């Protein structure tokens, strides 16, 4: 069964390249342009994983994670954060959320794919698909 992933980034190129990478690996991918847009999409589609940029207009990546953590229906959705800040996020920022990984920009799409498999536990499924 294909897993659904939501990619949230205000940079269209990042949304585009990650979508293609994950779709090529068999995932169903939705995209959102910022945190606000993401919250609407999550309510409508309940993704298995959210990959979000940190610094976005209106609702930032950390705020998005907090809102998800406070909502029982979405509290279990794992999150991978992308950041161009160049340094690790503070414990207080991610400690209360469901953030599983923090990846620094510029990132490698291969690394993101590996992280997605690791977080979703789909590594085995993907190897089977490849075979």
């Amino acid at each position, binding site marked *: 069964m294909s897993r659904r992933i939501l990619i949230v980034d205000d940079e269209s190129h990042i949304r585009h390249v990650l979508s293609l990478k994950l779709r090529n690996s068999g995932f169903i991918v939705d995209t959102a342009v910022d945190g606000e847009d993401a919250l609407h999409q999550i309510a409508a589609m309940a993704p298995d994983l959210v990959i979000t940029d940190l*610094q976005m*207009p209106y609702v930032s990546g950390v705020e998005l994670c907090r809102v998800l953590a406070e909502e029982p229906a979405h509290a279990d959705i794992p999150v991978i954060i992308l950041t161009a800040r160049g340094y690790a996020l503070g414990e207080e920022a991610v400690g209360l959320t469901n953030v599983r990984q923090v990846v620094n920009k510029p990132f490698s799409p*291969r690394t993101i794919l590996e992280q997605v498999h690791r977080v979703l536990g789909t590594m085995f499924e993907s190897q089977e698909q490849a075979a």
Partner: protein
Amino acid sequence: MQTLIRSILGGLALGTLALGVGLAMLLAADGMGLGGTLWWAVAGTCLAVTVIGVVSSLAMGRAIRSLSRELEHGGASRLVSGPRWLRSALRALNEHQLRHQQREVAWRTREQDLEIRARVSGDARMQAEAVLEVMDDAVIVCNTLLEVISTNRAAGSLLGFDPETAEGRPIAEIVKDPMLRRIITETLESGVDVEPRRGELMLADGATVEGNACEVVSACAVDRQGRASAVVTVLHDLSREREISQMKSEFVSKASHELRTPLSSMRAYVEMLVDGEARDEATRQEFYGIIQSETDRLARLVDNMLNISRIEAGIIEVDRDVVDIHDLVDRAVQTLEPHAREKDISLHTEIAPVGTMVFGDSDMLQQVIVNLLSNGIKYTPEGGRVTVQVDADTLTRSVHVAVSDTGLGIAPQDAEHVFEKFFRVENYKRVAKGTGLGLNLCRHIIETVHQGQIGLESTLGMGSRFWFSVPMGQVPARMAA
């Protein structure tokens, strides 16, 4: 003169005394009833004694008068001479005179020395006060009773007291900050044998700006006996340095974020091509185009950062010449016309027929016009209108350029920040990409390089009007010819 009178009186007194003795002897001989030859012998002896007394007193008076004259006319610097019978007295007098002369020379030398010292000390104090006044660091000098001896303007403004009335007042009245008072007291108690106390202090009570971080150095001044005579405390206000450091850090953080964004796209698309994820030619061509545009974006960003930094550091090369703003606007419209057409935006120009010449850097002014026009097109929805107006103001001798659009408009709280580095209007991020440096560079080019003005008038949802004005400037004679 007094000496002369004294010597004459002395001579007369001696003569009178001799005369008196002679007469007394005559009367005594007469009274004793001596007669004949003996009486004459006694009378003759008395007369001789009287004559010798008178002659001696006259000679002595003359010698003393001559001596007095010598002393009066010769002054203190000259030794005196006189008759042989006065030699031993004169030797003593001359020795005394010599000692007197030596003492006088020593006194004069000492007096001159003291005068010089007083003058030097006065000059040194004035110089020290001048040094204190021009110092940006706060200085407080207090004596061993912890009373202020000297302070400066910087100390007054940092610690919130009047430096004019501080002298003589106890340190406890002047310095409200308990920690600083403790440092000064402990420095005095520690004495002269310890290294100066150094540390950082967060000023609290009484300081003009509470929470000002200061670097403090406090040490004892030593007198000639090696004892502590004063406590000198210097405070270096760190708040400006901290502010600059924070600004630098914020700049690096924002710049790093902005640089990483296009770099992320470039790296990701290149990797996708390497991994064969672009499975058809159309996708590959799309990827090449994205990589190219992101490379341009990165290069633009680096150029803008360097140009801003060069202007701020005052090291940018400005190539001034006579520039017609009219030509620059025409060229910018020509360059951006295709972009406007893509969005079905109409471009208009309203240019004054004359007086649009300025003396400035053509490339930089062109960059400003292109930037403002490009922003107008970027943030105006399809079917909108962008207008460039150029007016000559002969009264202020400046040329005004305004770029108006029918776009999204900017909220007042954002409008005051649009010319800051890396500031981006939140709702604009969805509409188009930007470096966040374009308008900041424009402001530097107009205000710093051309001594002009730049501004914005906007109403949210009603479009924006970005404008700048640059002085026409004085065209050098060789260029006007």
